[in-house]
């Protein structure tokens, strides 16, 4: 594909995105709550779309397609288990986060932990963990686009150019009007992702197979080995577990449980996200099956790395369609990047800076937050230069590390005896253990690092909490959340 077309597609799409961000800026009020969570006034449709666009990244159309191509139906299964557990977790945690945010004014998930455990240190540790783990995840978005533009143009647009273009757009989305510009561009990006994916899928059905029924018949007849589960149970659990708790472990998505304007908006967010997730996941997994089948049939030449699966398919579709699909992938990656850097900025100011300098004004914290966004982007660009091979594994590692904070969130709402010391040390020790296992590549007893991390953090939380004194505020917090749930009609 000629570089001019890629630049044109990005240019047109960027102009639309910048216009949307500009409109969002006009509605931006003052203060931290306004900048980081849109003043808790986000409607149902935008809540659903920003949740979906933040969750689904370049991983879906590049990483997941490659995983299904190389690993078959088990890779699809791991994504379906993620959706299933996310909707259940949204049902359980969505109302609780929302009422706690309304009652106590929380704007970040670690701030909720600080409040519940009555310790700024807990929030700072959870925020620190997220900063360490989410930078590789954000970098993976940049890498996804870098690989894609390089692959599509045969190297005429270098990898680093793709990385820099996307970093610039992600920065604009987050800096223009904070959450409002991120959420509004997310809604546009979410629609782009769905529509472009659907168009490509129907092209694949009719161009290569003659129709959807013929496609499914061909997959069953010619590529049936893909439909047999061929991941070991350890690999399946190791890949799935971090994603199963993604809705709680990843602050860029759990923060979205604070943003809805009312209960109706939360409902629409849950229903809208789950529909989006199911349709988008079915479509992306079907691409994986089709590319495998097309390579086996000799229509697409074989390639070396699983991440090349989607770029290879795009090399065999008309230029316009390739560009449309590229735009959808670009949208998925930028929406995730914008949300992650904005959330990390909020953790930096609200959970780390505010605990050190509580007297600092909100307007000054917003300005510092903008500076943090730029710094995080620069770090992500440096990280992306490392060009790690498998985007999927890198993304899973980030969520694997964040998994260690999940027991603290459960205990915050349901276990009165859980303490700040228990929460803090469980996150610190289990986080360090998980990171060390990932870096060393050691899976003791064949079990993957996230499983060890989750077991360790749960045990430490229980043992240390039993040995330390329950904060007085814990009982009040749980009782108040229960009362607010009832008062707001959730029970």
């Amino acid at each position, binding site marked *: 594909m000629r570089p001019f077309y890629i630049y044109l597609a990005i240019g047109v799409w960027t102009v639309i995105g910048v216009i949307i961000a500009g409109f969002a800026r006009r509605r931006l009020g003052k203060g931290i709550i306004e900048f980081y969570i849109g003043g808790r006034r986000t409607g149902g449709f935008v809540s659903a779309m920003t949740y979906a666009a933040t969750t689904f990244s370049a991983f879906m159309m590049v990483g997941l397609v490659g995983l299904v191509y190389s690993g078959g*139906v088990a890779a699809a299964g791991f994504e379906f*288990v993620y959706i299933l557990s996310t909707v259940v977790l949204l049902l359980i945690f969505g109302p609780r986060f929302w009422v706690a945010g309304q009652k106590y004014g929380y704007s970040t998930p670690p701030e909720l932990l600080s409040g519940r455990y009555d310790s700024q240190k807990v929030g700072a540790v959870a925020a620190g963990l997220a900063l360490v783990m989410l930078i590789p995840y954000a970098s993976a978005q940049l890498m996804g686009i870098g690989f894609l533009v390089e692959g599509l143009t045969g190297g005429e647009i270098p990898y680093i150019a793709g990385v820099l273009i996307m970093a610039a757009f992600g920065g604009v989305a987050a800096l223009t009007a904070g959450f409002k510009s991120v959420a509004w561009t997310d809604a546009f990006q979410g629609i782009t992702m769905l529509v472009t994916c659907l168009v490509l899928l129907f092209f694949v059905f009719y161009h290569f197979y003659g129709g959807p029924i013929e496609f499914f018949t061909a*997959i*069953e007849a010619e590529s049936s080995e893909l439909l*047999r*589960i061929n991941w070991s149970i350890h690999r399946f*659990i190791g890949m799935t577990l971090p994603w199963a708790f993604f809705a709680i472990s990843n602050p860029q998505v759990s923060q979205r449980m604070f943003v809805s304007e009312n209960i109706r908006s939360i409902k629409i967010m849950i*229903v809208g996200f789950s529909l989006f997730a199911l349709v988008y996941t079915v479509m992306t997994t079907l691409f994986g099956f089709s590319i495998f089948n097309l390579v086996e049939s000799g229509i697409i030449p074989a390639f070396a790395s699983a991440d090349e699966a989607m770029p290879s398919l795009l090399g065999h579709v008309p230029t316009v369609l390739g560009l449309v699909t590229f735009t959808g992938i670009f949208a998925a990656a930028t929406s995730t990047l914008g949300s992650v850097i904005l959330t990390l900025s909020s953790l930096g100011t609200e959970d780390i800076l505010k605990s050190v300098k509580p007297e600092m004004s909100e307007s000054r914290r917003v300005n510092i937050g903008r500076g943090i966004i730029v710094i995080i982007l620069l770090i992500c660009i440096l990280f992306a230069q490392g060009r790690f091979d498998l985007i999927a594994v890198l993304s899973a590692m980030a969520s694997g590390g964040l998994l260690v904070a999940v027991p603290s969130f459960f205990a915050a709402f*349901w276990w009165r005896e859980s303490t700040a010391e228990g929460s803090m040390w469980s996150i610190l020790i289990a986080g360090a253990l998980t990171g060390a296992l990932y870096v060393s590549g050691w899976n003791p007893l064949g079990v993957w690092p996230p499983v060890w991390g989750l077991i360790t953090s749960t045990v430490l939380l229980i043992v240390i909490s039993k040995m330390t004194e329950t904060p007085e505020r814990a009982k009040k917090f749980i009782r108040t959340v229960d009362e607010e749930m009832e008062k707001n*009609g959730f029970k």
Partner: protein
Amino acid sequence: MESISLWKGILIVMILGTASVGVPYAILRNVESLWGSYFYWIILTTAVMVLVWRETGDWRNME
């Protein structure tokens, strides 16, 4: 922790874990058909989504 919440939580995790991982790995693992684990996971996910939607139907705006 309220014992009812704990047992309810454990029960939900066991049911979901068995349905989403246990059944595909124990029963459907070697089925080489779209009607094996692939459609099973799609149908299971859809069923859980519908149950969750029904639950949210009980939420009432009190404003």
